[in-house]
């Protein structure tokens, strides 16, 4: 009887511990592939709309065109898009709590020369002015 009690008590303990652990750690949805696809989508959209056609770093009209499209993407998705290397984003100004969602390394033909740029997406964070 005592052995049975000990076994059942041990099972009870195990169940309680595993229940507590599973409540603390519930496996999050794995959306890593989806994030990459979303970033590729944004890059493709800029490409299809001709934003990178004959791109030149000194061309203000091209920059304005990309900024406008990134603004549209930001309004549609509620996300921040950054084109590092050419310093273009739809989220201007300092924000706190921004979390990087995905980073892509792409090649951009700039002034007929290939240049590596980093295209990244983050959430919009919160404006410290409103905190």
């Amino acid at each position: 009887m005592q052995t049975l009690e000990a076994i059942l008590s041990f099972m009870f303990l195990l169940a309680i511990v595993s229940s507590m652990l599973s409540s603390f750690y519930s496996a999050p949805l794995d959306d890593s592939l989806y994030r990459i696809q979303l970033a590729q989508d944004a890059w493709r959209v800029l490409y299809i709309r001709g934003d990178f056609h004959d791109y030149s770093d000194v061309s203000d009209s091209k920059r304005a065109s990309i900024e406008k499209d990134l603004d549209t993407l930001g309004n549609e998705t509620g996300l921040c898009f950054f084109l590092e290397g050419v310093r273009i984003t739809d989220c201007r100004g300092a924000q706190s709590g921004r979390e990087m969602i995905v980073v892509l390394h792409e090649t951009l033909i700039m002034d007929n020369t290939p240049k590596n740029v980093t295209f990244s997406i983050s959430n919009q964070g919160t404006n410290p002015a409103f905190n």
Partner: protein
Amino acid sequence: MRMSAIRKRSGFLSYDALFSLIPLVMMLSFVMMLVSGISKESLSGVQGQELFDKLVGIADYSVKSGLAVHSSNDFQGVYGSSSSQPDYIIHNLVNKSMLTDGYVEDLKSASGLKSLEISVGAPKGATDDSFCIYRIVVVGNDRRISRLFVCGS
């Protein structure tokens, strides 16, 4: 004298067994409830991931093949030229006319989902238990930026 001693002892043993068994049975039933709860939770997690993966697959297929513009004849002037080009697929450039009930129904039956809705722009018929994801696409001759929603359950 000896018989009464045995009776007393067996009575003591049965009470002892009774009081030991009640908490044991309670503990056992509690363990069973916990295990069933944990397995239900993990099952719903797996099912949620499976649904998400299916929707991601359907959306990716739609953006890259199913709804994508398949040739220069489908969409004139993508790259500033209206001349005839060899057939090619332009990923993320969606031809809305290909988004028919038959297309959605085919994908729904192939993926084994209970319900499936694909729409350019906000979904209209998504129910509370359906899960939605979106992809960023370009639609129409004016190359308007939009979202392709895929909702399912």
